[in-house]
């Protein structure tokens, strides 16, 4: 029996040691934002981000970088998600590692929520100022009231330097220049410490006397009235009146010190300026679309009609921020995140230039591990099993036009 007990004790100790070591030594960085977990139909059929650019991959503390691009508010917005009538252009980052020095939609500053229209394209820019050193995954992001966060593509960005050097100077309308990073900090600590000390003083007055057992006995024996003395009442009066007086006095002195204050600002920005994309001259009809589960490939049968005056070729299919390119037509030179870029992921059964006035039915295959890695294949488990995306056609002069596709998707399991 003793042997068993000793063995159990030893094993328990080893298990405890192993668990402690594992928890201490294996601490992976939690740097992503759950972008892969968001329902695939949300990413495919709400906000389509494109032409994204992160101006720098490495930036020093206090320096700035911009995240810019365009987004198309999908006209076939899913019924299960509230429409973006109240939306906020955000940034997905792990804590305030960058501060948002500015953000614009169509050239208008958007510190507040804005109303977006379905079927419209908007140009955006976010100016970010580096604050905390490290490698951070920085995403474009749109929060939609009733819809939740709709995360766009993210790219790893490195901040170098020391956070101690970070400053955030702001000049107020009263002419004072302050560092918002540390402004009002001492004042906050002072008032909290003062009031906490007063609270402790009140507590200290009572706890210096016997508390629970003797007072409980006194109350049980009908002597409750003897427990509060005249001195107690005087002290109580002093604390109560002193507190009210101190609050009134400090309110008055604060108003003298800060004669100009305004309420918090809130409101919705409407009539945001849209970005006029060239009107497409290519018409696309989705004859059918299937997703081949074992092959991690989506295949569409497209009937393409060129109504323009220049021959076109299909160069890109963009869905849920994953870009499938036909490298014979388009090569990415923007430094788009590798994990979201399938440079040869788009295969078209006949991608020869489609002459003006011509109609052609083609098989288009978008295949890449990204279907699995970004959990787009999970679309088949979504409540509304439709896919959507942007097709980019290019003419001989390299002129681009964008066409949206939206159709049911049938999974193929065998």
């Amino acid at each position, binding site marked *: 029996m003793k042997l068993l007990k000793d063995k159990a004790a030893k094993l328990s100790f080893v298990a405890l040691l192993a668990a402690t070591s594992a928890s201490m030594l294996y601490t992976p960085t939690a740097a992503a934002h759950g972008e892969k977990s968001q329902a695939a139909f949300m990413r495919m059929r709400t906000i389509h981000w494109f032409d994204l650019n992160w101006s720098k991959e490495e930036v020093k503390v206090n320096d700035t970088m911009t995240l810019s691009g365009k987004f198309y508010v999908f006209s076939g917005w899913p019924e299960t998600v509230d429409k973006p009538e109240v939306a906020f252009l955000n940034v997905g980052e792990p804590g305030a590692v960058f501060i948002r020095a500015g953000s614009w939609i169509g050239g208008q500053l958007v*510190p507040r929520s804005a109303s977006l229209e379905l079927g419209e394209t908007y140009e955006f820019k976010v100016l970010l100022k580096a604050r905390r050193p490290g490698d951070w995954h920085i995403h474009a992001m749109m929060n939609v009231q009733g819809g939740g966060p709709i995360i766009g593509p993210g790219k790893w960005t490195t901040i170098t330097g020391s956070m101690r050097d970070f400053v955030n100077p702001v000049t107020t309308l009263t002419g*004072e220049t302050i560092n*918002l990073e540390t402004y009002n900090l001492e004042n906050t600590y002072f008032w909290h410490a003062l009031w906490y000390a007063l609270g402790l003083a009140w507590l200290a007055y009572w706890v210096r006397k016997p508390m629970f057992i003797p007072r409980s006995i006194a109350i049980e024996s009908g002597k409750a009235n003897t427990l509060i003395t005249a001195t107690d009442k005087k002290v109580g009066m002093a604390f109560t009146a002193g507190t009210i007086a101190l609050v009134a006095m400090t309110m008055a002195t604060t108003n003298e010190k800060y004669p100009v204050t305004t309420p918090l600002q809130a409101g919705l920005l409407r009539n945001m300026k849209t970005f006029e994309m060239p009107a497409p001259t290519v018409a696309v009809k989705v004859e059918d679309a299937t997703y081949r589960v074992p092959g991690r490939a989506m295949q569409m049968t497209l009937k393409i009609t060129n109504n323009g005056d220049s021959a076109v070729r299909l160069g890109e299919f963009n869905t849920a921020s994953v870009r499938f390119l036909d490298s014979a037509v388009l090569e990415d030179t923007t430094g788009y995140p590798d994990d979201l870029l399938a440079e040869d992921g788009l295969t078209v059964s006949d991608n020869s230039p489609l002459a003006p006035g011509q109609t052609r039915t083609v098989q288009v295959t978008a295949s890449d591990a990204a279907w699995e890695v970004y959990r787009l294949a999970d679309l088949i488990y979504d409540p509304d099993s439709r896919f959507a995306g942007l097709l980019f056609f290019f003419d001989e002069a390299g002129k681009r036009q964008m066409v949206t596709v939206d159709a049911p998707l049938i999974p193929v399991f065998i």
Partner: protein
Amino acid sequence: MSASQSAVRSRAEAVKVSRTFDWMILFTLFFVVLGGYHIHYMLTGGDWDFWTDWKDRRLWVTVAPIVSITFPAAVQACLWYRYRLPFGAVVCVLGLLLGEWVNRYLNFWGWTYFPVNFCFPSNLIPGAIVLDGIMLLGGSMTLTAVLGGLAWGLLFYPGNWPIIAPLHVPVEYNGMMMTLADLQGYNYVRTGTPEYIRMVEKGTLRTFGKDVAPVSAFFSGFVSIIIYFLWHFFGRWFASTAFVSGENV
């Protein structure tokens, strides 16, 4: 020593045991209340207490006192009825604020890098001292509910104004006017707290012009009276002793 003998042999020993018991109970009470009250306040007051750009003159003033008078009322009732100790509200608020400061400093600043001048907690101590003071002076739960509850609501905004006023200084930023608190909310990115979630300056209280904070504070005080009544019953129930006869065991 037989089972019928006392564990203490002298008055001095009894006093010593009693004081030890005092400190044990107070220590436990402080941290139990800290935990319970903190969770309660985070769930009900939440963002209004977390961020400076939520601390407005309408909803913060209204909501924060109403949801925060709960534990002070209950603990005050318990300590007053059982022990005639008038520090229930203060001990609650001291516990809450300690927990909040630890949370704001270690979590908000330490883990997610929000500056403390953006995420400090609201000051509830003036209301707590007055609530306990009225309990002591009046010795009546009804009086404490009516006067103390009202004072709790009324003192909240002025008690916090010296801390938040500097953040209500206006600034022109890229062609728009905002307060420094608004700018903090804009600058320091909260991925999961978009601007539209912010419940500030909403409502229909528009006939008082810019002097809306006192009206909100009065309303908050009135509702705090009701909440005080409700929660003081919880405290009394919690402090009650029920004996069951041996036959029913």
